[in-house]
């Protein structure tokens, strides 16, 4: 048995390797095809500033492990944060209860897998930076928003850094570890004018060190952006209502790809035939300009990872090529049942959850139109600028919520518009994409996606896009 090098779970978890081997054996003692232990040690720091003061700080430690047994389509799962052998054994027996074949399966000897890539190199682990340094970032963002304009009345800034150490071992002999940093600086600004009040949000971060806030996005920019949005909304009109051409701004509008396409290409929904895409592999589902990727390997992005939460090295996956469906996001269970290769999209919120197919960084690739040309082509329509989020159902019906946009009149952006909802059915909308811009951008590094109660960090992106016709829900 090789001793794993860099990230020693023995340091973090204080469990000898032969113990884990023993537990894997116990977990397959009633049969089953596969078993796995996911060990997690997570540290986080949090700072909150409001009412002109550093209101509080927090520190959190989370330590635990989850044991999974797969038997056909069935999954047994047990977890514990008590690392006594008895408690771990109990979790293993719980997981094992899913199988009743009593055919004892042999586990392979654990063999440490090293990988040479690192999608999140940092100068210093953000966890190890001093609190004083982090507080100074918070104050900078806060003051930039607060002092931006006298109409800015309230500001709230929070900073969060998290380091997740994880080790995965399984009955096929895999032993693999990773440490993932995650940082986020957020600002909320509230502007007031007469009786009117509006809020603006902004933020940034990713799997980065805090040098990001000097090199990529400064706290001052984050503060000013939030203030600008709040002020802009004070002047905004109510959105129009009805069907009309819609132009999506680059970056933020990636939410559309995430909701309208990404979720329904997660393998579990297709294996279970609940997704509208389940019988459409290789078929045309979108306008032929459309290419959609999910790429967990983009350096420093929130959605990126060196290994997924099943220990698979992830791959950039082409989901839609020239408008045709070409791929699904796979985890181990679905890939096995569907007899497809792994893509490295098995993710979980933490050790209490079993992994399921998830997106990472999802985007529509760039097209050939200049963004100005796209805007110019619309006589009367809606320009979706900033997104709050979206939701989709397996039937393909989806919505997304826009916190700010503009009216599009005679090829120009005119009045700012607040709080609108776009709604549609995914295949309709994908076919109604008429122009794709050359200006691919990614949304802010603050996104979190929820599925079956599990939250994971994600990023999404797209260039400027024109949709010929879409329902805009407004009040006019």
């Amino acid at each position: 048995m090789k001793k794993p090098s860099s990230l020693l779970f023995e340091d973090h978890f204080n469990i000898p390797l032969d113990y884990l081997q023993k537990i894997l054996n116990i977990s397959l003692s009633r049969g089953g095809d596969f078993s796995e232990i996911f060990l997690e040690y997570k540290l986080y720091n949090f700072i909150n500033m409001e009412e002109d003061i550093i209101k509080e700080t927090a520190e959190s430690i989370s330590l635990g492990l989850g044991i999974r047994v797969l038997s056909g389509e069935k999954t047994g799962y047990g977890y514990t944060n008590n690392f006594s052998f008895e408690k771990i054994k109990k979790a293993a027996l719980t997981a094992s209860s899913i199988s009743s074949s009593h055919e004892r399966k042999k586990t392979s000897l654990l063999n440490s897998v090293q990988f040479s890539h690192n999608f999140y190199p940092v100068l210093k682990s953000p966890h190890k930076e001093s609190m004083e340094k982090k507080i100074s970032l918070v104050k900078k963002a806060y003051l930039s928003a607060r002092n931006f304009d006298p109409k800015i009345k309230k500001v709230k800034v929070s900073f969060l850094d998290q380091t997740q150490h994880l080790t995965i071992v399984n009955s096929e002999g895999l032993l693999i570890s990773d440490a993932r940093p995650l940082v986020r600086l957020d600002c909320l600004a509230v502007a007031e004018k007469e009786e009117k009040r509006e809020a603006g949000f902004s933020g940034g971060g990713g799997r980065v060190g805090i040098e990001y806030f000097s090199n990529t996005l400064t706290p001052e920019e984050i503060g000013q952006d939030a203030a600008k949005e709040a002020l802009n909304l004070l002047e905004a009109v109510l959105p129009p209502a009805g069907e009309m051409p819609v132009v999506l701004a680059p970056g933020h509008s990636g939410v559309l790809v995430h909701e309208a396409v990404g979720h329904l290409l997660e393998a579990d929904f297709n294996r279970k035939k609940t997704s509208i895409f389940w019988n459409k592999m290789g078929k045309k589902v979108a306008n032929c300009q459309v290419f959609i990727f999910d790429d967990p390997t983009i350096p420093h992005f929130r959605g990126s990872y060196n290994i997924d939460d099943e220990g698979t090295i992830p791959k950039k996956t082409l989901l839609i090529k020239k408008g045709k469906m070409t791929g699904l996001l796979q985890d181990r269970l679905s890939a096995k049942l569907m007899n497809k290769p792994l893509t490295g999209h098995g993710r979980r919120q933490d050790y209490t959850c079993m992994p399921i197919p998830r997106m990472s960084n999802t985007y529509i690739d760039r097209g050939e139109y200049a963004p100005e040309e796209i805007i110019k082509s619309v006589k009367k329509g809606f320009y979706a600028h900033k997104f709050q989020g979206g939701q989709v159902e397996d039937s393909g019906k989806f919505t997304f919520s826009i916190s700010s946009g503009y009216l599009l009149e005679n090829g120009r952006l005119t009045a700012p518009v607040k709080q609108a909802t776009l709604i549609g059915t995914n295949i309709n909308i994908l076919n109604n994409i008429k122009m794709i811009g050359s200006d691919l951008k990614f949304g802010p590094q603050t996104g979190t996606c929820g599925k079956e109660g599990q939250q994971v960090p994600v990023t999404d992106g797209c260039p400027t896009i024109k949709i010929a016709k879409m329902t805009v829900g407004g009040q006019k």
Partner: protein
Amino acid sequence: MKEEDSTYLKELAESLVAFGRVNGADEVEISILDGYEFSVDVRLGKIENLVEAGSRSLGLRVIKDKKTAFGSSSDLSRETLQYLVKNAIKRAQLASTDEFSGLPPLSPKGFNIPSLRLFDAEIAKLDSEKKIALAINTEKIALNDKRITNSHGASFETKEIKTTLANSNGFLQEYEQTFCGISLGLQAGETDSRVEDYWFSSKRFFNELEPPEEIANIAVERTVRQLKPRKIKTQNVPVIFEPMMTSWLLGFLFACISGVSIYQKTSFLVDKLGKRIGGSNLDILDDGLMPGMLGTRPYDAEGVPCQKTQVINKGILKNYLCNTYAARKLTLKSTGNSAGTGVTPNNFYLVPGSIPPKEIISSLDKGLILIRTLGHGLNPVTGDISRGAYGLWVENGEIVYPVSEITISGNLGEILNNIEMIGNDLDMRSSVSGPTIKIKELTVAGQ
């Protein structure tokens, strides 16, 4: 960790409070959650997932010189916990002095926890086979209906939670509670024209759960009634909210009357205390003391006794719902709604009227029954609502067809003033709940 007796967590909490005080904290609060969960998901008659686990976590707050720091851990070794307490005391110095910070004073009130009916001893005794069979039966009944074409599966879950709270003002209490629930998600129609919905029952006591037949039949009915939807033209019409939709609306209202959003000025209801914000038919309460209900608890996360609070009385805003900090900021009293730094509803509900829901539908000449919403689109700062929606179209008091791909938009402030009818069908299905209501007019956007 060695085997322990039933007072172990209380003693651990108490000793950490003392440890914090000895190490220089002015005030210390320790809370411990000791939970056990079981869940089984079945789909198309077979088990998909089975989860069973126990876990613990501890949260702490220390205050020194009116400066606050928090910590939490799922590693309950004394070594880790003492490190966290010490580090929090050190870190507190980095926060600003905040005259509003601090623990609530010790309430002289005693607690009669058994009378609140929070714990069902039966739940721990249920055997796995029975729990699995319940989920399988629930789904099976639904799948027998030929209109159902696919299933998201059925689940049965139970939770047993013991909460321990100690602070340096002398508070030391713990209580146990249980939850159990069945849920079922279904699809109807062919692949390219599918509709879907779900139904559930969630209770503290196993024998109060609704039977599988009832859950399955309602889930089927809610799903198939959406088949063959039409699109409608954009228009302003009266809208009836089904109880689940009223609950959703009340969840948004809660965010707007939370003392935290009031002092942060992120609510449209800032400075509205004592003022009319709704029609005179509108009464809304938050009651933490209703025996056996999902949102019931003896005291909140800071140990402040829960109470029955009038939130809106005959349309007048009577109280914001506060934790201790928000209450001090607003010079009010805590209403026992603390969830740590935030607030949470206890049993937050709209007082039902006397009209049967059928009569409300018959009263509608032309309009929409809102049955589901999709997406985000709630802005507490302005009260603006904009959401994707599903509904049933009503003409001359009769449901004529389902509609989809629409959005509804309006403003919560206006909605509260335009509730024309309130149903008699409050069922307290969740901790935030309301009956069927009829709103005078909302914008429904379609084609």
